[in-house]
């Protein structure tokens, strides 16, 4: 199989200047194409910048916005992930990542987890997405696309892998912080992300692609350090911290099969077990206890998900 060349576009968008960022995307896309890339990944909110606050509504685009379609038109023979503020029909704003392929907008993922703590204030300005799906790509494998904080929640990578993803892509605008000298790379945030991406790649036996921006918005600096991790958990490439650049990495997609044959972790996943226990936990947390009688007995068969719904009783009629 021909290796897939992945281009990581570790660049610094200009805050709130949509037209300029669009132009920059077109240039970088052309550069990636010239470098022979088959998959080009831009960072979270690369089209708008991150620290938008009330500017979010001013730079929002619908997914059929001519400007986005115009960018998509330049993706013949390419798979490209770009990220922008998406305005829905009902005028909710989302942080979204779109897969652009062969001239069209093929798929849009809306950020599921919006950090609103510490230096983050996303929930104030954005709505959270509520669909987690993989997408078939022209690359011949399913892609699992997530945005930054989505990967700080364990179930996301697992769900994407169970849904068939062989290549996980996380696009980020991760603000660097914690310079304590005890860290392996001198930046606490970088250490955390390296751990996360290696873990996801290894446990889902998938490729994991991390594209993080650089540059500054207001007081925060984004640290780059984009990576490609093999299904074995081995880092194939790590971009420098803070340096702008278009970095290409060649991967053998066949490595996914080899890894999954040798280490059949996905085969051995127990989603039905998760589902059953999650239903129980959720019922308990929301005060809707599940009738114990409908639970499988010791050593019993696991019923279809719908089976337990009938036995549910509402404690708060």
């Amino acid at each position, binding site marked *: 199989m021909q290796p897939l060349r992945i281009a990581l576009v570790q660049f610094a968008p200009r805050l*709130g200047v949509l037209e300029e960022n669009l132009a920059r995307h077109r240039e970088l896309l052309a550069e990636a194409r010239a470098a022979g890339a088959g998959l080009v990944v831009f960072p979270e909110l690369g089209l708008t910048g991150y620290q938008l606050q009330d500017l979010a509504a001013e730079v929002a685009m619908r997914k059929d916005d001519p400007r986005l379609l115009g960018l998509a038109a330049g993706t013949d023979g390419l798979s490209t992930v770009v990220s922008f503020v998406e305005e829905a029909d009902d005028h909710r704003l989302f942080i979204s990542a779109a897969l652009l392929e062969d001239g069209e907008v093929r798929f849009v993922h809306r950020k599921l987890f919006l950090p609103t703590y510490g230096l983050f204030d996303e929930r104030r300005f954005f709505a959270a997405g509520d669909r987690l799906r993989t997408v078939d790509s022209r690359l011949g494998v399913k892609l699992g696309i997530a945005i930054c904080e989505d990967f700080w929640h364990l179930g996301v990578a697992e769900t994407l892998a169970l849904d068939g993803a062989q290549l996980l892509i996380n696009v980020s605008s991760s603000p660097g912080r914690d*310079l*304590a*000298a005890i860290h392996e790379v001198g930046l606490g945030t970088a250490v955390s992300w390296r751990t996360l991406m290696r873990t996801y790649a290894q446990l889902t036996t998938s490729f994991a692609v991390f594209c993080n921006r650089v540059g*500054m*918005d207001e007081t925060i600096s984004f640290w780059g350090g984009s990576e490609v991790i093999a299904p074995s958990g081995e880092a194939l490439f790590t971009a420098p*911290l*803070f340096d702008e650049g278009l970095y290409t990495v060649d991967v053998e997609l066949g490595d996914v099969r080899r890894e999954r044959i040798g280490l059949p972790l996905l085969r051995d996943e127990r989603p039905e077990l998760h589902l059953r226990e999650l239903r129980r936990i959720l019922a308990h947390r929301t005060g809707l206890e599940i009738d114990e009688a409908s639970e499988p007995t010791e050593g019993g068969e696991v019923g279809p998900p719908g089976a337990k719904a009938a036995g549910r009783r509402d404690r708060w009629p």
Partner: protein
Amino acid sequence: MSAAPGGRQGEPNDGAGRLFELPPELAIDTAIARRVIVDFVRNQLRQAGFSRGLLGLSGGIDSALVAFLTAEAIGPENLLCVLMPYRTSSPESVEHARLVIERLGCASDLVDISPMVDGYFGRDGQPGAAGVAEGEASALRRGNLMARERMCVLYDRSVVWGGLVVGTGNKTESLIGYTTLFGDSACAFNPIGDLYKSQVRQVAAAVGVPEAIIRKAPSADLWPGQTDEAEAGFSYPELDRLLFWMIDKRRTDEELLAMGFSGPTVERVKRLVATSEFKRQVPPVAKLGPRTTGVDYLYPRRRPGSARK
């Protein structure tokens, strides 16, 4: 990444004479700090439509470090260092400031603030604009006025120089409120406001600030022989450690005591932090209209169109 000498150093030049004391938990990666700060200075200026900066150079370590980092960010030819001694300021302060200017090769300016301060408070029994009713003004009043006169000079020079005022206050003094509101804390942006004094020393050593400046006791230089540490009653390494565990690491009083900090010190520092909250925030505006700045009108400072043309 810049290859700063001693980029990962946690060893503050031990050996013959220890340059400064660095509590291990405060040690940072100075190469990354340097990179982030230099980018920050460059970005702040560029986004505002400026290529030049200026700062008040006191001869102390904070402003010396900011001068080094600003010169690195925008080139020494774009930096103006303004020396603003008062007649009782230590001559050593001006000497040390000159050392920095020579090392960097940046522009400098000296403005004696004595006539301004004396014009207000009077001198040698002669009354100033403030009158004589209360007798000799307290050290607090005099110190505050000096800090604010320096602010006035800097902002006036910023027009002539065509640059922005770069702040030089560190995290320790900001947290305990050892600053003058609209005085030394006034600036367009502050590159070192998230570095404790101990970390300022660490970065200063890494970027080559002259040793004499790193080694000397920090002082507001408001009267001869004054030092911060004598005035505050605790050392910077001790204070930095306490603030770090209390604020950055969210330790409770009980946990701080168990770590060996003394009860009265913890109490006193907590009080200093709480009573100086107002100095670290923009003045509050009474909420009346549909959209109020800082409340529900929230734009980035550097929004499109905000830069000077």
